[in-house]
């Protein structure tokens, strides 16, 4: 039997206690063709260099933890096979995020953006339990289902040119999540969120580069959500001009 193929993984290393700037370290390892990129990084961590830090959890594209830049592209490493890459694979932490250590990035700013879009069902009047469930038709479910598939992997923020230039930009995942509730037939908070969407650094900052949808591993299509959100925010704004009290209701 022939030896398994070898690949060189060039990985960004950064220890804030020691390094002033990130450096790279190369690891040449024999790879199983069935491996995902994450398997290779895990192998390096377990068998070659235990000091390497990276995040991962489910290994099946559900938890969204293992996002990294692979050869310069934001990728979910548990989804990409090593065999789709050449002999040298460059792995760096996700772009547009502060690096804590090696491949681990700071998520706090990202999580804070979600709270801003009020990602929960807002009702003008809460229903009592005895009123029973609020029913939805399959068509009504279809309106938002796609946008609820986000796993918060942050790849879209890493790919977004606007986030790169304006870190305070609300960003694709948060806007898609807000839009997901705006088009949910059970929700009555669209005016509140549309007012947020017309604020600084939100939907109108998007230049529709579409990179977010290109890299999304769950086909959420955040670029579509952002542009639908723009349209709804404009309609809501115009309605507010004609019916000034409309926004307050």
């Amino acid at each position, binding site marked *: 039997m022939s030896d398994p193929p070898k690949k060189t993984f060039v990985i960004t290393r950064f220890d804030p206690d020691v390094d002033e700037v990130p450096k790279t370290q190369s690891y040449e390892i024999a790879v199983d063709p069935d491996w995902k990129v994450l398997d290779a990084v895990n192998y390096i961590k377990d068998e070659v260099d235990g000091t390497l830090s990276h995040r991962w959890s489910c290994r099946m594209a559900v938890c969204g933890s293992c996002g990294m830049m692979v050869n310069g592209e934001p990728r979910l490493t548990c989804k990409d096979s090593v065999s789709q890459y050449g002999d040298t694979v460059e792995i760096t932490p996700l772009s547009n995020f502060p690096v804590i250590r090696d491949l681990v990035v700071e998520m706090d700013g990202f999580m804070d953006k979600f709270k801003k879009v009020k990602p929960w069902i807002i009702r003008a009047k809460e229903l009592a339990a005895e009123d029973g469930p609020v029913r939805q038709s399959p068509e009504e479910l279809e309106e938002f289902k796609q946008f609820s598939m986000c796993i918060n992997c942050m790849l879209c923020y890493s790919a977004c*040119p*606007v986030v790169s*230039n*304006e870190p305070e930009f609300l960003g694709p995942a948060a806007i898609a999540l807000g839009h997901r509730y705006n088009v949910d037939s059970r929700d009555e908070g669209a005016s509140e969120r549309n007012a947020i969407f*017309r604020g600084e650094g939100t939907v*109108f900052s998007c230049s529709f*580069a579409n990179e977010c949808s290109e890299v999304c591993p769950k086909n959420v299509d955040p670029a579509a959500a952002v542009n639908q959100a723009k349209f709804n*925010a*404009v309609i809501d704004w115009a309605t507010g001009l004609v019916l000034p009290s409309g926004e307050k209701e």
Partner: protein
Amino acid sequence: MKQFLLKVEPVIWLLFGQGIMIGTMLLTGWVLVMGVLAPLGVVDSLSYEHAHGLASSLIGRVVLVALIALPLWKGAHHIRSLSIDFGGADRDTELATFLYGIASVGSLLAIVAVVRL
């Protein structure tokens, strides 16, 4: 200026969105027919009187203003976005004022020209 831009952003985006539709679909066809096919004789050219009659009707005037003004807004918004994405330009600097200024002046001139037809 920043606050003003923020306030009018929905209007700019609407003009931009319509500009994309007009610019991509109608203007392309317009240029193809009027700029290429008619001079080549592939399609019959309109006589001056016929063309003037069409353009100076109410619908003709509206279509002409839309064909000239909306793509200006599309272009201005695209260049602003591209300058931010690729050139690292500031969102609310003179660039936005300059680009939307051109689009505004162009739109006004288009309206004046079309009214005077």
